């Protein structure tokens, strides 16, 4: 019941946004569907006349439909940029198959004796098509259009991933923020839209022949209307493309707005696509993580958070206290890395694994050697220490470094359970004693594991020392788990721009960005 009340509240507060998204959603669906009908229907008819082409055409349309939607959108960015254009094009490709296939099947299943009767009475091929084949194929043909429409309403939610708006903004924002009312505010209208489209098309199908023409006319007039609101000119100085989570989290963009009085012109995009979009100059500012290897790949500049709006996410190893008590020699080894890795160094290491395709072990070894920390493995036969890591590059590298250090400096053995799904899985494994050590971030500890109330979390975020002290005290009390001294880098949210553009506009900090925008 609470959820329901929260949902109603959300819808009431966001009704304007909801209406806008719904209209965008309808627009995306109708425009792409119309395109598919305009292209797919004649194509389907064509292959009933040139049957040799039917295998090829249906095959290609089938293959198009198997391309994962997010991958397809990614492919399209270099050609069509971001926004409604690639979204409509992708939706168009997805709905081609049902329309072509059902047109073809519908016409082919018309009784051949009827076709012969029609030709025998003197109908031309065109008359046969328009008077006999199409009317008789109509139920199957319409089933195809209805399938395509329902499919499009569903897939159109993904348009939110490339800044084309639609109800996907609420859905993906809600998922990123774990906000159920927000998810529902997107999902329920989307489901209703699918039902409505299906219903209206079913009604259209049953219209008597005489009334079909006005209905079609209305439809044709409606399309430009829906297309029009994609044509509103956008002449902002800089365009920001934000991931839904960053756009919605209080410590993300809303926090930034409050701290800097920054007002960006934003569109919402998939986290996986923002880097590509900024690289292709479709947007100028994106959000990301400050140690991501992609920063180097795409030659981006991380804007300095000069007013500390983003909460600190300092990385440090979490260790179970009993392990340290049993093996006091470990502490010294574990602290070897403390304070040695800064942001850009971590970015570089991530880059070497993600894009230079080196193994985390090699990258770790090379780094340790450079720092003079590396020692050959003693191949000791002591007890086994179990290391854990979450499922991303940075954690693999850190775990690997630690593993090599322990083997080099102690007689303990090491085994690794890498690629544990997420924070909760990793931490539960540690608390249960299934693993002994894994790298964690202070911000995550504060927010996700301790569930600190927002007000307290906010005030703690301002001071990284204070925050570390708070987190480590609490962990010790509650879980008998110790935070080792931080490694040095801060993997937190960051705003980024293309290096070249940032240089040209003399922007290095977020305050600079604000000044530039206000000029």
């Amino acid at each position, binding site marked *: 019941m609470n959820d329901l009340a929260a949902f109603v509240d959300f819808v009431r507060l966001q009704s304007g946004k909801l209406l806008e998204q719904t209209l965008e959603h309808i627009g995306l669906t109708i425009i792409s569907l119309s395109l598919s009908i305009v292209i797919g229907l004649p194509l389907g008819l064509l292959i009933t006349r040139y049957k040799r082409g039917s295998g090829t055409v249906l095959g290609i349309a089938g293959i198009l439909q198997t391309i994962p939607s997010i991958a397809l959108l990614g492919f399209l960015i270099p050609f069509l940029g971001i926004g409604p254009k690639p979204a409509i094009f992708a939706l168009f490709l997805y709905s081609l198959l049902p329309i072509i296939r059902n047109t073809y099947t519908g016409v082919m299943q018309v009784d051949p*004796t*009827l076709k*012969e*009767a029609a*030709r*025998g*009475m*003197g*109908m031309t091929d065109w008359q046969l098509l328009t008077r006999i084949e199409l009317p008789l194929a109509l139920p199957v043909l319409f089933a195809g259009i209805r399938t395509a429409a329902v499919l499009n309403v569903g897939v159109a939610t993904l348009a939110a991933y490339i800044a084309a708006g639609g109800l996907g903004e609420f859905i993906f924002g809600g998922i990123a923020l774990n906000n159920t009312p927000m998810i529902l505010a997107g999902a329920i209208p989307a489901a209703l839209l699918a039902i409505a489209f299906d219903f209206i098309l079913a009604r259209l199908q049953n219209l008597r022949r005489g009334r079909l023409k006005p209905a079609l006319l209305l439809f044709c007039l409606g399309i430009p209307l829906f297309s029009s609101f994609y044509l509103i000119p956008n002449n902002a100085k800089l365009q920001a493309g934000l991931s839904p989570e960053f756009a919605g989290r209080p410590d993300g963009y809303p926090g930034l707005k409050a701290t800097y009085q920054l007002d960006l012109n934003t569109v919402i995009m998939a986290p996986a696509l923002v880097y590509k979009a900024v690289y292709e100059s479709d947007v100028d500012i994106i959000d990301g993580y400050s140690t991501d290897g992609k920063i180097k790949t795409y030659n981006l500049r991380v804007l300095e958070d000069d007013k500390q709006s983003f909460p600190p996410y300092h990385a440090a190893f979490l260790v179970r206290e009993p392990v340290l008590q049993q093996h006091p020699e470990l502490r010294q080894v574990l602290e070897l890395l403390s304070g040695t890795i800064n942001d850009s160094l971590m970015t570089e290491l991530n880059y070497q694994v993600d894009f230079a395709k080196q193994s985390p072990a090699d990258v770790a070894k090379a780094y340790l050697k450079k720092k003079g920390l590396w020692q050959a493995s003693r191949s000791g036969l002591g007890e086994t220490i179990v290391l854990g890591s979450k499922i991303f590059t940075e954690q693999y590298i850190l775990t690997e470094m630690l593993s090599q250090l322990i083997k080099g400096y102690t007689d303990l053995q090491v085994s690794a359970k890498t690629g544990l799904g997420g924070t909760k899985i990793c931490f539960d494994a540690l608390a249960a004693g299934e693993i002994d050590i894994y790298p964690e971030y202070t911000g995550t500890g504060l927010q996700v594991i301790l569930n600190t109330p927002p007000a307290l979390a906010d005030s703690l975020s301002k001071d990284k020392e204070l925050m570390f002290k708070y987190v480590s005290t609490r962990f010790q009390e509650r879980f008998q788990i110790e935070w080792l001294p931080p490694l040095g880098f801060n993997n937190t949210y960051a705003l980024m721009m293309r290096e070249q553009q940032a240089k040209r506009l003399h922007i290095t900090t977020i305050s600079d960005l604000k000044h530039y925008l206000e000029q």
Partner: protein
Amino acid sequence: MIRIRNATKTFSSFKAVDNISLDIKERETLVLLGTSGCGKTTTLKLINRLIELSAGSIEVAGKNIQQQKPEELRRRIGYVIQGAGLFPHYTVKENIAVVPRLLGWNKSKTETQTSRILEIMGLSAQKYLWKYPRELSGGQQQRVGLARALVTDPPVVLMDEPFGALDPITRSSILHEFRNLEALRHKTVILVTHDIQEAFELGDRICLMDKGEIQQLGTPKELVFQPANAFVRRFLQERRFQLQLQVLQLAELHSYLQPHLTFTDTNIITLPGTASVLEATQLLSVATYPRPVIALEATATTPALHLGISDIMAAVDKYIQTLNL
């Protein structure tokens, strides 16, 4: 009316129709008869160019069909197919009006002719014009199919197994009506069937085909009494006796009939000389008492006669004996 000269149709290496020449006279009903795959349907479709000739030529009403647009040729030729082939999304009225519409008739002419032809086919226009094919019985559908082919009064009508999909009872009643249909009497009809009975009942002439070739072209009587080859004989073997009775007219037996006592107190049925012997024997074999007797009408050259079944059978026997000599 229709001249077919050296018509050949080859499907890849298979000769469906092999060098056929055939003349179809005006107002004649010609039946193309044969087993399936004999080339009879292919021959029919060559005439309205649903199938194109591989070699040879066909003229309809003096004009070479290859020199006309196929659609225009077809609009001038009525076409009836098995199971009627009515368009399920059209009403009876729309179905019948297909060709008038293609010919660009005005609305009132189309409507008058549609209703007229439907009534001729024995269906009330008021009741049936607005019905859809699925609401009609098989026999009614076939009537509408015929109406659709005849509404523009084309001089030539092609029929492809028109009664093939009907049950035997409906079929025999439609056949009977069909034979007496005034609207067809002045038309050149080419009808394809595999049914011997139907061919003999409807055909002025029968063209018996096998393996793409004409085996015999002639009147029903010629096929029965003067089979051209072993195939024709074998093809008609099973029904030979019935067909003999069917193709013979009572008048032809006249010289073989014995003058007979005149019955006075019996059940007398009067028949004209043109009635078939089969019809007479069927009437006589009805098991009633007193047994009926056929009264054959007198003509200018022959006196009236009263006949019992044994008289007729004896005369038939003599007739056949004479032929065989």
